[in-house]
C-alpha cells in the first residue's frame, strides 16, 4: 500500500546540501509491522515524516494505495493525513488546555464530523484503551503512559490504515513503554499498518520487518525470521 520509489530529500544547511534521504525505494504492504532503526541523523525521522505527508520529497514518487500523493496540494494532503494516517509522537503533543476526550476528538472536529457521532467514536476508542475514567482529565493530570495512550487514541479515532510512531516510548519509563508498545502491537494485530521509528534495538527487534538506515540510505531490510537463521 505504501510505495516509495527513488525518493531523495535534500536540506540546505548554510551552503551545504545535506542528503537526508538518498535514493530510497521501499514497498510496505497493508498490515505490516515495520521498525525503522539507525543512529540519529540517519534519516529515519525524515522517512517517517515523508510517509506521513508532513514533508515532501525533493524528487521521487510516493504512492499511497496506488495514488501518487506527492502531487497533491496542501488541503488534499491534509485530507489524506486526516483519513489514512495516524501519528504518535515521542513528546505526545497533547493540547494542554483540552481534556483527554477533547484531544482525541480533534481529528474528528477537523474532519467536520457531527458532535453526536464524535462523542460516540471518542467514547468507544477511550474505552478500548481503558481510558474512560480519564476522559475528563487535563493532560497535566495524566501520567506519561496515560498521555501516550490518549495520543494513540487520537491517532486511531479516524480509523486510519497506517499508524506512524516516532520513538513512542522515548519519554516513558520501561513499564509504561512496554504497555504502550503492547497496545500498538495489538492494533497491528487487528490490521493496522504499524511503522515505528526507534533507536532502541530491543524495541525494534520486536517488529516483523526491520529497516536499518545509515546516512540517508537503507542499510538493511530484513524479516524477523531471517535474522535468527542468518
Amino acid at each position, binding site marked *: 500500500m505504501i510505495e516509495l520509489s527513488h525518493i531523495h530529500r535534500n536540506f540546505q544547511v548554510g551552503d551545504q546540501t545535506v542528503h537526508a534521504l538518498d535514493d530510497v525505494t521501499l514497498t510496505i504492504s497493508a498490515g505490516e509491522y515495520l521498525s525503522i532503526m539507525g543512529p540519529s541523523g540517519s534519516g529515519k525521522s525524515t522517512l517517517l*515524516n515523508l510517509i*506521513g505527508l*508532513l*514533508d515532501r520529497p525533493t524528487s521521487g514518487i510516493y504512492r499511497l494505495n496506488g495514488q501518487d500523493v506527492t502531487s497533491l496540494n*496542501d*488541503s488534499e494532503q*491534509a*485530507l*489524506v*493525513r*486526516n*483519513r489514512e494516517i495516524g*501519528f504518535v*509522537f515521542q*513528546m505526545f*503533543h497533547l*493540547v*494542554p*488546555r*483540552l481534556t483527554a476526550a*477533547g484531544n482525541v476528538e*480533534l*481529528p474528528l*472536529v*477537523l*474532519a*467536520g464530523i*457531527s*458532535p453526536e457521532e464524535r462523542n460516540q467514536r471518542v467514547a468507544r476508542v477511550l474505552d478500548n484503551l481503558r481510558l474512560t475514567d480519564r476522559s475528563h482529565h487535563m493532560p497535566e493530570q495524566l501520567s506519561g503512559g496515560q498521555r501516550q495512550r490518549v495520543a494513540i487514541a*487520537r491517532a486511531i479515532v*479516524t480509523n486510519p490504515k497506517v499508524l506512524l510512531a516516532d520513538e513512542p516510548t522515548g519519554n516513558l519509563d520501561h513499564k509504561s513503554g512496554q504497555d504502550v508498545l503492547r497496545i500498538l502491537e495489538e492494533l497491528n494485530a487487528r490490521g493496522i499498518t504499524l511503522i515505528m521509528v526507534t533507536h532502541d534495538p530491543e524495541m525494534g527487534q520486536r517488529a516483523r520487518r526491520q529497516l536499518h538506515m545509515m546516512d540517508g540510505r537503507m542499510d538493511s531490510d530484513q524479516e524477523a525470521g531471517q535474522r535468527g537463521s542468518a
Partner: protein
Amino acid sequence: MALHSRDVARFAWDALRGYPTRTILMLTAMAIGVAAVVVLTSLGEGARRYVTSEFSSLGTNLIIVIPGRSETAGINPGTMMGETPRDLTLNDSLALTHNYSVRRISPLNIGSASVSRQNRSRDVVILGSSHDLLAIRHWELAQGQFLPQTDLERAAPVAVIGSKIRDELFGARRALGEWIRIGDRRFRVIGIMGSEGRSIGVDVQETIIIPVASAQQLFNTSSLFRILVEARSREAIEPVKQFIIDTLQQRHQGEMDVTVITQDAVLATFDRILSALTYAVGGIAAISLAVAGILIMNVMLVAVSQRTSEIGLLKALGASARQIVILILAEACLLSLLGAFAGLALGQLGSLIIRYAFPVLPAYAPVWAVVTALLVALVTGLLFSLMPARRAAGLDPVLALSKR
C-alpha cells in the same frame, strides 16, 4: 472538510481561556479603545445638544437686531468723517412693528444697578424691555404679572424680579406690591420670575426686568442694546429679516449700520462646529482603537509562536492551511468582539457617570459612533490577525513538531 462553526467558536474560546493573562491584556486594550470612542463622542454630542437646547430656549423664529456693523465693510463715508454708528432707538423698534409677518417685538436694554430694600442691597443686572419679552423668550412667571402692555415710551415704575433676588431682598416675606429702590428710583414689584428661565449667560433668577423707557432713564441713554423680533413662522424669518434691514436702512439715512442675525443661523453654525468637534474627538479616539489592533497583531504573533507545536500537531491531524487560518482568525475575532463589547459597556458607564456628574450635559454616545467603534474594533482585530494567521498556516509541521 468543513469545520462546524460551533467547533471553531469553542476552539477559539478554549484557546482564550488557556492563556488568561494574554487574553485579559488584549481585552483591556481593545476595551479601552472602544470606551474612549464612546465616552469622547458622547461628550462631544452632549456639548452639541446642550448648546442647541440653550439656543432654542432663546425663543423660536427669533431675529435679533444689534446696533453697529459686525462685518468690516472696508472704508465708508462714515469712517472717513469719524462718525460712530447710529444707535438703535425706541422709534426704530416701533417702526418694525408695521409688518404682518412680525408677531412680537421687544426692545432690550441691559445694565447693572444697585438694588436695595430697607437695609439690604446688591448689584443686579437690569433688563429694560416690554410686555412681549415674556412670550418671545418662553419665560414663565411664578407670581403676579409681567410688564404691562402699554406705550413703549411710558416709563412706569414697575419691576419684575427674579426669584433669587426676591429671596435675597425679601427673605420669606411677601414681595408682590412692595417697593424697591433701583439706582436712585423707586419701583413697585409686580411679578416674580419662575425658576426655570435660563439662557446663555443670563440667569433670569438673578435679574430685574423693568419697562424699557424706565431703563433708558435709569441708565441715562436713548439707545437700545438689542431689538428682539419674533416672526410668525419659520418661513417668515427671511422676509422679516429683509424688512428689518430695509426699514432700518431707510431710517438711518441709507446707511446699513445694524447687524441682523437669525437664531437659526447661529444655531446651525454651532451645530456644525460641535459636530465637527465630535467627529474630530471620535477620530482621535479611533486611533487608540488602531493601536489596540496593532497590539492584537503582536500578541497573536506571540500566540502563534507560543503554540507552534500545537499548530504543527493540527496539521499532522489533518488540518489544512485554510482551517488553521480560520481557527486563528476566529480567536482574534472572538477577542475583538469581547473586547469591543466590554469597551462598549465601559464607555456607556463612563457616559452615565458624566451625565450624573454634569446633569446639564446630555452625554449620550451617538449611534454612529457606537456602530463605528464596534466595526473598527472587529475589522482591525481581524485585519491585524491575518498576518499571524498566515504565518501559522505556513509553518513547517516537521519543524513545528520537533520543537519542545
